[in-house]
């Protein structure tokens, strides 16, 4: 019951994210849904032009707000030397406090973020930086910029997809490339009351609402030319090819549960995961009810005669049945009390709350109290109804004359209940093992480069191009083999661009692109499938040598890729010709959730360096990352580098699966524990009702082995049946879960057999003691047993 309540609270919390904002039913985020060059993509980011560019033309928009996250930490010099973490530093429009329900504790909500270089601090950060009071105080950032504290906001509540410690006015930063097709910040709209957000538009684009259609119309009118320049097609041409680039809206309160777009602002949960967790908790309650029913009947087997006599003396069957139900309800409510105590003590420290700490468990429990009450009633009813029904069937005469049948009657139903329990346990445990096999797979699978030896340094842009000096400095560290520079690394900062096959320029295709230096391939340990690359400059200003991956060869339909040309049309008109010099073997530059996409790498002419990648001559340890951080801190104290191992970075893709796995392990233990309790109770019933038979058999010469086999045969048969029933269910669930990955482990029958054997031995362990005790009792005691 504690388990079920914790799950209820968790699901309640997860479902209430961002519901505290004013008019949360009218608060939406814009995202881009596109299909270009055959590639489908949904991204949470949008253009900085949307907010102010669309609002004047869409009357339904009441208010807008943009949120931008920089990709580097901001060093603070005054009042104390510290860093403003890029993950919790938001650059926001002045309408932020109008749009969102975060409580401003000090400052004017309408004006505190209207001027450039204004900053609003969270309460805890304000106390840390300015214990004597923060309003009006100055922060010196990046050596020379002065930001004024214009407000103090409550600490960011955990039930929001936004996470901040400081809010800076968006006008403080020069936005990179503020075009209509530059997608890099988040745009929110609040629509006017009465706006029908669900009404479908009459459009050939599926699922497009009237409002979305309106936004799209305005966007195409304002930005149609920019779009055409970016992707080389007009909107009409796109539609003719069944391709599209549309603006979609998602309710802010739905983001946490339902949004899994690229470039999300936060780690969202998966609604499927929540449903699975809810399903498992319901199963655990049912299993507990089954056990209770079995134990109750087991208790009866030893009291059959007493019950028969009670009935003869005047007790009604109904009274006994009611007594049983009342007992069951009482136990259920007593259990509720203990369950609430357990939840109070344990829930804040469970893995469910690790990523999203609970806010106010008491408030949640109060709000959920009607549901908790119903669950308790339901539990009491389900647990008590079977024993009550059982006892109701018999008259006193049948009890006394057929005492033994009464004791053993209903065997098949109880056996069925044990089968169900063990089948549930097998399904849960196999699913858990699948999750962990997949997690191990993603950690161990070759990604096409040597990730174990790499440390990535981000924000190298701060070097302002002095990369040679940087490289020379870094090579002073121990165990470093080489260093490469790039504007993107696997998993981060890759962008898509439109290109055309040099032999067929009628088609615009979308590919990922990266700009790197010539050492990139050797640093990452990538292998060439064809051709090679040696450092060369651009032959002329409109040609470049490139390397593409094997997927790009397929995508472009190239039969002899080496020497082929690809055309890259620039936004301002001229076309670059890209000559393919090499084909690199496919490598995963996104998570294993998605298939490898076509990629073009420009290994020369690196204009904007964002990342440096260090290759060690051995696998990287945690100390290596610390060592690099410390070293950079001393050599370049003013540049807020961010450094991490490549393994660590790739692991972030699977955080949700990791949490799911941990939750599943906990549930597995619960499930098998409860199933074993059920088994124990069934064995208790069996031995009670067969005590005399055991004595007779012993008198007739049955040895320990024969008796063990006799008593356990039935139980193990039930477990074997459970194994067969659970197999297709476990496989289906696992298949369904693995389907989210483009690359995944195969479902394994041998793994299932292993899980089954493990459960089997746990069952053996559970019952052997009770069996042993029964079998080794004196036959004379057993024969005297009534």
């Amino acid at each position, binding site marked *: 019951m504690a388990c079920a309540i914790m799950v209820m609270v968790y699901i309640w919390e997860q479902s209430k994210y961002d519901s505290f904002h004013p008019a949360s039913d009218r608060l939406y985020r814009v995202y881009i849904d596109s299909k270009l060059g055959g590639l489908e993509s949904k991204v949470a980011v949008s253009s900085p032009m949307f907010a102010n560019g669309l609002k004047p033309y869409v009357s339904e928009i009441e208010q807008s707000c943009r949120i931008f996250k920089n990709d580097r930490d901001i060093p603070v010099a005054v009042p104390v030397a510290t860093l403003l973490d890029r993950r919790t530093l938001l650059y926001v429009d002045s309408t932020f406090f109008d749009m969102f329900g975060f409580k401003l504790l000090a400052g004017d909500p309408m004006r505190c973020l209207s001027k450039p270089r204004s900053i609003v601090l969270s309460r805890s950060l304000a106390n840390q930086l300015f214990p004597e009071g923060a309003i009006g105080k100055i922060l010196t950032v990046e050596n020379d910029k002065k930001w004024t504290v214009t407000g103090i906001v409550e600490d960011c509540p955990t039930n929001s997809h936004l996470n901040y410690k400081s809010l800076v006015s968006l006008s403080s930063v020069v936005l990179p490339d503020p075009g209509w097709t530059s997608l890099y910040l988040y745009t929110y709209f609040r629509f006017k009351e009465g706006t029908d957000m669900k009404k479908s538009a009459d459009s050939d684009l599926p699922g497009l609402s009237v409002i979305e259609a309106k936004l799209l119309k305005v966007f195409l009118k304002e930005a149609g030319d920019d779009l055409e320049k970016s992707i080389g097609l007009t909107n009409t041409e796109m539609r003719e090819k069944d391709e599209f680039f549309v603006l979609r809206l998602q309710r802010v309160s739905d983001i946490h549960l339902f949004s899994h777009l690229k470039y999300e602002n936060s780690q969202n949960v998966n609604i499927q995961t929540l449903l699975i967790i809810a399903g498992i908790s319901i199963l655990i309650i049912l299993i507990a009810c089954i056990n209770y029913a079995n134990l109750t009947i087991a208790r009866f087997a030893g009291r059959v005669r007493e019950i028969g006599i009670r009935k003869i003396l005047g007790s009604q069957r109904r009274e006994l049945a009611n007594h049983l139900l009342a007992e069951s309800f009482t136990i259920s409510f007593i259990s509720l009390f203990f369950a609430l105590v357990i939840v109070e003590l344990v829930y804040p420290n469970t893995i469910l709350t690790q990523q999203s700490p609970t806010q106010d468990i008491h408030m949640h429990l109060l709000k959920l109290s009607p549901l908790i009450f119903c669950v308790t009633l339901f539990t009491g009813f389900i647990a008590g109804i079977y024993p009550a029904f059982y006892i109701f069937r018999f008259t006193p005469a049948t009890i006394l004359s*057929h005492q*033994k*049948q009464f004791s*053993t009657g209903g065997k098949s139903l109880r056996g069925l209940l044990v089968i169900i329990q063990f089948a549930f346990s097998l399904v849960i445990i196999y699913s858990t093992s699948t999750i962990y096999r997949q997690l191990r797979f993603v950690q161990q699978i070759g990604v096409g480069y040597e990730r174990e030896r790499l440390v990535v340094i981000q924000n190298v842009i701060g070097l302002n191009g002095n990369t040679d000096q940087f490289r020379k400095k870094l090579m002073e560290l121990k165990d470093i083999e080489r260093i490469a520079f790039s504007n993107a690394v696997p998993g981060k900062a890759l962008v898509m661009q439109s290109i055309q096959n040099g032999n067929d320029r009628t088609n615009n295709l979308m590919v990922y692109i990266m700009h790197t230096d010539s050492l990139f391939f050797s640093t990452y340990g990538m292998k060439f499938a064809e051709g090679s690359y040696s450092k060369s400059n651009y032959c002329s200003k409109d040609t470049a040598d490139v390397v593409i991956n094997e997927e790009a060869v397929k995508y472009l339909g190239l039969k002899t890729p080496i020497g082929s040309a690809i055309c890259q049309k620039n936004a301002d008109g001229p076309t670059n010709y890209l000559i393919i010099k090499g084909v690199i073997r496919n490598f995963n530059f996104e998570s294993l959730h998605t298939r490898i996409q076509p990629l073009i790498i420009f290994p020369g002419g690196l204009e904007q360096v964002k990342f440096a990648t260090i290759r060690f001559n051995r696998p990287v340890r945690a100390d290596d990352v610390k060592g690099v951080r410390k070293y950079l801190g001393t050599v370049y104290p003013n540049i807020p580098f961010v450094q991490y191992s490549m393994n660590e970075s790739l692991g972030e893709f699977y955080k949700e699966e990791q949490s799911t796995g941990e939750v599943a392990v906990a549930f597995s233990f619960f499930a098998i524990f409860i199933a074993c309790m059920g088994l124990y109770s069934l064995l208790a019933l069996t031995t009670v009702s067969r005590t*005399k*038979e055991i004595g*007779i*058999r*012993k*008198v*007739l*010469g*049955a*040895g*320990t082995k*024969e008796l063990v086999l006799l008593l356990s045969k039935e139980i193990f048969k039930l477990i074997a049946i459970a194994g067969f029933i659970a197999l297709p269910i476990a496989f289906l669930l696992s298949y369904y879960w693995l389907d989210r990955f483009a690359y995944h482990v195969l479902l394994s029958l041998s793994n299932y057999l292993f899980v089954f054997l493990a459960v089997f031995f746990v069952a053996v362990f559970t019952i052997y003691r009770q069996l042993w005790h029964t079998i*080794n009792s*004196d*036959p*004379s005691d057993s*024969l005297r047993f009534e």
Partner: protein
Amino acid sequence: MIELIDIGKVFRNKDIETRALSNINLSVSDGEFISIMGPSGCGKTTLLNLIGLIDTPSSGKYLLNGLQVSDISERNRTELRKDNFAFIFQSFNLIDDLTVRENIELPLVYQKMAQAERTIQVNSVLDRFTLKHRANYFPNELSGGQQQLVAVARAVVAKPRVILADEPTGNLDSTHGEDIIQQLIQLNETGMTIIMVTHSMMQAQRSQRIIHLFDGHVVTESYSKVATNL
């Protein structure tokens, strides 16, 4: 064959100690038919259980065919019991989930006899006791007399050396009770040793020797007139 020397049995239950048997000295020869008599609670069943190795004495010595068996392990007791003793109980003690045939076959299963041979033995016993037409019935489908007959059949199928019968006619009417006694006499005539606990002097006198128990002691031993006459 069976020799009890100073056998005692004490039952302990929390703070209560009950001395069921004290200083029992008894010898039983091969082929004897003896009865044990006494009032309720005098220790008759306890004595029978000790002889049949179902229970262990608290004191004294038990020699079975010259072998000291008072304090052997449960496993060894089971083996000896299988080879030497068979039981007939007052309440029949058949297994309800098994048919008549399966109940009779059970001792042979525990002796690890092969299936084919078991079938032969069981069929022979079913014939002997005229139970063949009831072979596939369950115990609760038979009368008391028939159930006890099945119990006797089960007892003899493994050809034990000793049959221990604890008030075998206690739950039967006189006609059926007489049938059972007749069966025991016939078995004794084939050389089987019979030790019977009974309340009925009439039945006791059908045996050769009568042991009287009182308060856990052997009070007297007598030889029955009927047996003597025979």
